[in-house]
């Protein structure tokens, strides 16, 4: 299963962190720091895989992708395939890109909750749930529509929600 998803910028600032098993706050910070420490010391043009047992304990690997100013990092165990995880990062990034048109670091910072929504659609409880970015986008759009609707916040009564769903 997937243990964590992180997005860290090249300066080591976390932009997104989602742990699928609960970890105390300090531990999360420590892990983020350690992961960044490992990644930033890796040379260019090497593999996207890192052995993470010294950071996350036995049976854990990291796959990361360095895009522009960001590291996208997935931490997972041996029940996943490294190359497939690399493509899952690709799915995430493609989805973000479609969502924000030329996604950049700022989009991720400013749309914090939206990113979480997208991620929740892709991964659920540590398992890969959806890999079609069109499908993910549709779900996100549906929620965005609600938000865009005037007075959406106060005016969606329970009776109307039934109408929305079908």
């Amino acid at each position, binding site marked *: 299963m997937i243990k964590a998803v992180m997005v860290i910028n090249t300066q080591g600032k976390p932009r997104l962190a989602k742990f699928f098993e609960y970890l105390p706050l300090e531990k999360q910070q420590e892990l983020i720091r350690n992961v960044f420490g490992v990644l930033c010391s890796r040379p260019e043009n090497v593999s996207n895989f890192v052995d993470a047992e010294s950071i996350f304990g036995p049976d854990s690997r990291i796959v990361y992708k360095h895009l522009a100013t960001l590291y996208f990092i997935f931490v997972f165990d041996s*029940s996943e395939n490294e190359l497939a995880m690399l493509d899952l990062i690709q799915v995430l990034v493609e989805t973000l890109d479609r969502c924000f048109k030329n996604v950049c670091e700022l989009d991720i910072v400013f749309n914090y909750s939206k990113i979480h929504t997208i991620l929740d659609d892709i991964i659920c409880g540590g398992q890969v749930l959806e890999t079609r970015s*069109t499908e993910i986008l549709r779900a996100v759009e549906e929620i965005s529509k609600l938000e865009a609707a005037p007075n959406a916040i106060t005016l969606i009564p329970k009776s109307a929600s039934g109408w929305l769903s079908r």
Partner: protein
Amino acid sequence: MGSQGGFYQSKEFLDLVKSIGEARSKAEEDRIVLGEIETLKRRISDPDIPKRKMKEYIIRLVYVEMLGHDASFGYIHAVKMTHDDSLLVKRTGYLAVTLFLNEDHDLIILIVNTIQKDLKSDNYLVVCTALNAVCKLINEETIPALLPLVVDLLAHPKEAVRKKAIMALHRFYQKSPSSVSHLVSNFRKRLCDNDPGVMGATLCPLFELITIDVNSYKDLVMSFVSILKQVTERRLPKAYDYHQMPAPFIQIKLLKILALLGSGDKQASENMYTVVGDIFRKCDSSSNIGNAVLYECICCVSSIYPNPKLLESAADAISRFLKSDSHNLKYMGIDALGRLIKISPEIAEQHQLAVIDCLEDPDDTLKRKTFELLYKMTKSTNVEVIVDRMIDYMISINDNHYKTEIASRCVELAEQFAPSNQWFIQTMNKVFAHAGDLVNTKVAHNLMRLIAEGFGEEDDTADSQLRSSAVESYLHILGEPKLPSVFLQVICWVLGEYGTADGRYSASYITGKLCDVAEAYSDDETVKAYAVTALMKIYAIEIAAGRKVDMLPECQALMEEFLASHSTDLQQRAYELQAVIGLDAHAVESIMPSDASCEDIEVDKALSFLNGYIQDSIEKGAQPYIPESERSGMLNISNFRNQDHHEASSHGLRFEAYELPKQTVQSRIPPASLASTELVPVSEPMYVRESYQTTIVPSASSDAGSTELKLRLDGVQKKWGRQTHSPATSTSSSTSQKTVNGITQVDGSNTSNSRTRETYDSRKQHVEVTPEKQKLAASLFGGSSKSEKKPATGHKIPKPSSHVVEKSHARKSSMEIASEKKASFQQPPDLLDFGEPTVKSAAPSVDPFKELEGLLEPTTQVASDENHGSTAAAATKSPDIMGLYTETHAGTYDKDDSDILSGLSNPPVTNMFGGTTSMQVAQSSKGPNLKDALEKDALVRQMGVTPTSPNPNLFKDLFG
């Protein structure tokens, strides 16, 4: 699509993010974030904030927490938001809650109800959101509340909901397999879902289930194969294509499942060959995802029953991976090769060069993977190369975790495949020298044993060659600066055992070297202790050989220093060394037989060597030891105490019914004033016991003690209630206990009792006997009582009939001895309160009982017969209420032992038994049995027991 806005964010939040982004130092960032927290704290508690604002505040809180600052003050607000009717607010609430809380957080209970409601909602978006939360927040206890709802959702018309419901159910299974085991069939059913996405999701839980129990899913092989076939034939909707591959993620999962199902099952495997072969052919190896599928195919092929054609395709794919320029593919290739060589070892050869390239690659990940492969490939023919490579790499890295791992691998390979002893020792030296203290001390002990025992063949010359080559290399290595402690210990040990064995080096040369070590590493007591013991061995060998021993001046200086060392361990070793040097050849020979480190030590657990001493004492009028089973006048404090403290210690759920509060008797009658006879109606106890034992585990003899007390109180109980127990009770009881044992001080000071109480709490666990409790105790204390018992009983004056000579493995028994010895060192601090001198004075050679009785006499007329537990009646004049307990069952004695040892900090008790222990030990080390003691001790040292001053093993035993 693609709108920048969408999710509402205020200018304030943007500003916050910007200012954090621009912060030039961590301190500045912290300052900004702390300011933000203050603002949020203020605003969030305002009851009238509009929901839209509130939503944003919560997002800001999440953000703040991601940056590592505590936002717990806002958790409750996030929980409140989940209750909201508006979907957007609710979503934000759920998002925040899943990020903030763990499944055991107190606030979860407030959310469960909301989740229940939301799972029933008409709006599938609400349901999905709730299911997301379910995956993260539900623990074993709350599963039943949601399980039916989630199961219903498996049939929801929306596939998005069905998918998430499967994931939630899977999560339940992970949290608590038993609670959903009856629903596992649902996963099978969903495998046939119309929607491929749902089917794909089902593969996740099925994969896990199959991993646990392959055999119950063999029937699904054909289904999986046909699904995989359909997927590869592009029968799924176009939408599932990813980079021109049909549903690759589903393919990968299916291949993983097939690998499990086909493992070692020829019949099942045969069904898979065609489809796997198809994938090999169709797979697009130009895309990343195509290679992912290919890799999974290789894994599958190497796991299922081998098929030559498939193996060939797999080998082809591997060579393509290895030849690729991509490091990722090389990595996968190396990994795949590692899997395949288990089946066909010969394919490794054609990739030799590629593997060597990977070994020299600058990419660390790839290098490590390659070492893993090499580790798997090691044979006796290539072990030298591989281990040398590994050691070189080990020297070059700084990552301690990996260094440790690779060091242990080197050791393992070297032990398994070493071509020669010489090489083995050299290799171990390198590993120790470079990985030093990262190496497990076990490895060091293994090495020592190996040198001592040789390689198992009955070839003495080879063994002694091995030893002398070890000695030689160590003498050489000692010249290097700054060696790791573990390595030095090995060196000292080997030099001590075998330094002079082959006659090439003189004793004075070796001792000189050892002294150098002790001086050079003067801050490492363990090394110093090893050095001293090594010196002692060298001298012992010299003396035994009839040569005259001349201590080097530097050695003498060193001994002077150690004799005054702060470390009692070092001190003792130094004194022993002195003592050994003063002995004659014959004595030394029996204390320290040369090259006997591998001999088994016979531990005379019954302490039969004390028989003569005991005989003497009895002749002088001491009372004989009465075995527990025959004792009747013994009261069990611990039980009694247990009752007293029961409430305090068991705050959790109690599973057994409350017993009648026996202790009330005590509180009713102030101990000092009561005449003990009054309290001891002889006939009653019997009756009590019967009734009592029905409720409590019958076998525990200790219960009997408490029973009596309890009976007495029958009528009183309701009036007095439990809270009346006063500390006075415990005081008196402990006092009386002491006298009963006839061992020590009768002062029974109250101060110490308060300390006693705490430790008694833990003891209770052993005594109150429901199986649940025992389990709990076992888990809490790691069965400490059991292990404790051994050394304690060892010290008891044994029944002469029970000579148990235990022949255990040398190492083990020596540990025991060591711990016994330590126990005596431990005592003094605890004893202070109680007049340590008493114990001390009792120790040497004078009959301890006698002396103690003497001490008792002034205060009380405790007759000696009562002391030794003859019977209850004798108690008449004992102090306080002790008469009350004299009646109690003797069997409790044993229980006490273990309990007492488990709490060394427990002063009065330690006194009682600890007193005994130290006396016995004192006898053995200072009394007439000096020789025996030395001998034993010598053996301990010889076995290479780590001589750190506070023996860690002892504490491990004692405290679980």
